[in-house]
């Protein structure tokens, strides 16, 4: 897994103001991790490279969205901890 300058953790659905703010703040060396209602983005997210975008598996499964995103991009709670710990900065939107 590559490490990121800033990991953006997004738990807001696509119609939330902070969702749009977050997407506009993602820099070229940054990663995006979707959690909680943020995983609803997998139905419509585009323009962010697959290797920089992840979604939390339990939240995807709870919402029946697992098939909307590649398996490589789904992460467990343990993966989430690794991602967070390896990033230089973390922003929780």
């Amino acid at each position: 897994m590559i490490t990121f300058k800033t990991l953006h953790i997004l738990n807001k659905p696509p119609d939330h103001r902070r969702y749009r703010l977050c997407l506009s703040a993602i820099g070229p060396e940054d990663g995006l991790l979707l959690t909680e209602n943020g995983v609803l983005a997998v139905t419509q997210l585009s323009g962010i490279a697959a290797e920089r975008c992840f979604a939390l598996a339990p939240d995807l499964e709870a919402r029946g969205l697992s098939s909307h995103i590649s398996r490589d991009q789904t992460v467990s709670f343990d993966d989430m901890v690794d991602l967070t710990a390896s990033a230089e900065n973390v922003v929780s939107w």
Partner: protein
Amino acid sequence: MSTLIIIDQPPYGSWEGREALDMAFSLAAFDQPVSLLFCDAGVNWLRKGQDAAKLPQKSIERNLAAAPIFGVEALLADSNACDQYGLAKADLLDHTSITDFGPELIDCFNHVAFAG
């Protein structure tokens, strides 16, 4: 390890902001560098002259004024939000600095977390 806590919700309407304030105070209690940024409707937290006596809540202005005493490093107000809500420097709580919320500011902190 520095933390920026961002409050973008107006005062008094909900509890998320107060929880965030509590989080900032707790970080400060353990001498962890922490600053608070108010943006969007959140800048109204910083408005002078609040009188919550007739609400079943304590005055946010007075609670917030304790932040520097507890060791919160900075109270920051987003300049766009100040413009939007008609807040000039003189209208803001003492110790507040006006700044621009953007990538440069985010880069100054290891952790950035929104309230609620």
